[in-house]
């Protein structure tokens, strides 16, 4: 029993190590996870986004407010108009502007359930991106695997006229970024968001600035962690833990079975006349088998779990996972065999 317990300890440690390696790979693969983590950390100190709502009864005030944002917070891409309610718009829609998937915040996809007529794959940009290209008189942009037709750019662009026309809007407020906007009609309210990437000093400065120009008394502070964010974090955490447990159990089963079996076989081989070199080669071979099985289990688990949870990874990400997994397994096997060798020597000497 003592011997069995000693083996078990080793197997658990090795299995845990392998399982952690696999889990680490998921983290490496899932770039988004780190974004969540960084958001989570940031939210401990600051909210992710502040909101404030103003009623721009006086257009000049609003213009002035946004035209004179202090230098310290002059990166006005941090301030985005996320919604507006149009006074005379019968549909009273809120047009949401979403930052594009790409890192460039200069590109926004015009979206919103109220704009049904707007075809998918059409983009509105505040300016023409460098990567855009022209074809048949239209500008196109390729983002990831999708091709978007740019239906308009800039202030007073065709895009807004297009939306206006389609929605029957006669009086409208439009903007892309706050430093680049104008009001053509009065709106009942404007909803602004600004990013908490602003430093706290600048954030306070901006708040005080807005208060001097408007009657905003309270800044809406969203929950530090939104319920959606919390739920997604939990889902991802559960995903990682499940994978970790899965690998732990599978690796433990494989390793304990094989090593327990093989340990005696080495001794049997030795007394039957196997050379030391041959035993070393046998061990390397066995380790490769264990590694291969463990690798297959890890990869299969990854694919099955993705299927169950509906997690999607692109083919390039999957290839990356497979290759990273393979490389790590080779390293792990070398390390484990090295540790095993050293441990064996110590035990032998003891």
């Amino acid at each position, binding site marked *: 029993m003592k011997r069995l317990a000693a083996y078990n300890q080793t197997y658990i440690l090795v299995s845990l190590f392998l399982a952690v390696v696999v889990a680490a790979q998921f983290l490496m693969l899932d770039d988004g996870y780190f974004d969540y983590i960084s958001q989570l950390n940031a939210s401990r100190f600051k909210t992710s986004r502040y909101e404030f709502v103003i009623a721009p009864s006086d257009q000049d005030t609003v213009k002035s407010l946004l035209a004179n944002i202090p230098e310290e917070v002059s990166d006005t891409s941090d301030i985005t108009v996320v919604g507006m309610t149009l006074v005379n718009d019968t549909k009273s829609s809120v047009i949401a502007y979403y930052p594009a998937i790409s890192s460039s915040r200069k590109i926004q996809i015009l979206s919103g359930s109220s704009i049904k007529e707007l075809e998918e794959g059409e983009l509105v940009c505040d300016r023409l991106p460098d990567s855009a290209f022209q074809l048949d008189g239209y500008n196109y942009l390729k983002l990831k695997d999708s091709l978007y037709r740019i239906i308009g750019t800039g202030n007073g662009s065709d895009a807004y006229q297009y939306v206006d026309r389609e929605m029957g809007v006669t009086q409208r407020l439009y903007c892309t970024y706050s430093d680049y906007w104008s009001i053509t009609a009065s709106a009942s309210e404007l909803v602004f968001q600004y990013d908490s990437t602003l430093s706290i000093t600048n954030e306070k400065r901006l708040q005080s600035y807005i208060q001097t120009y408007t009657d905003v008394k309270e800044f809406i502070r969203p929950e530090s962690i939104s319920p959606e964010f919390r739920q997604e974090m939990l889902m991802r955490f559960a995903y990682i833990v499940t994978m970790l447990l899965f690998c732990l159990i599978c690796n433990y089963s494989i390793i304990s079975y094989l090593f327990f*079996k093989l340990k*005696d*076989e080495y*001794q*049997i*081989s*030795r*007394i*039957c*006349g*196997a*050379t*030391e*070199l*041959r035993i070393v080669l046998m061990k390397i071979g066995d380790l490769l088998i264990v590694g291969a099985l463990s690798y297959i289990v890890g990869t299969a688990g990854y694919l099955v779990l993705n299927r169950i949870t509906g997690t999607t990874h692109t083919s390039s990400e999957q290839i990356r996972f497979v290759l990273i997994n393979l490389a790590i397994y080779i390293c792990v096997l070398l390390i484990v065999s090295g540790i095993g060798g050293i441990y064996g020597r110590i035990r032998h*000497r*003891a």
Partner: protein
Amino acid sequence: MEEYAIELRNVAKIYGGRKESKVTALSNIDLKIRKGEFVAICGVSGSGKSTLLNLMGCLDKPTSGEILMNGRDITILSSRARAHIRNRETGFVLQDFGLIPYRTAYENVLIPFYFSDKRVKDKYSRVERVMKQTGVYDLRNRRVSKLSGGEKQRVAIARALVNEPGIILADEPTGALDSKTKKEIIKLFADINEQGKTLIVVTHDKEMADAAHRVLNIKDGHIE
């Protein structure tokens, strides 16, 4: 001049590298075992019996001294040459049988041939012969895990004999057997010895020791 199967000259075995952690398992061992002799090595646990057996079986090297097998010093041999001795000149029988449980009895007896440096043409007939000799031929296609303790030990003895070694080394071969099976195994050992094999058995068992020509008692790493 008489040639001994095994001769130990002033052999010592010390485990541990550092001075404070050194353990002397054997010291000043002088021993001569004639060819065809049946020797029982007795002693309490930790007295050095198994260490002595491992040294004689080329499983370990002494810290000092010489071990001669058939007149040749085995302590200076290469790892490969020592493996050859384990394969061809000695056969091991262990208390826990040392068999691969998921293989058949036949496959287990074949194992030494996997490690032979020369191709053995009549290996199958040899396996059959030793299995008949040890009384396990009828069990040849059974998995070892399905065999009783006595049957397993017979398979282990067959494996030790299959390469026709001159010396059989056994470490507590009756330790895991009931009294009836033990008697059968002792008889089998006696028969093997009668066929001219040198038999060196580490044992606690009085019956086994009584069957031997000579009994060596080891205490604290010394032969008394």
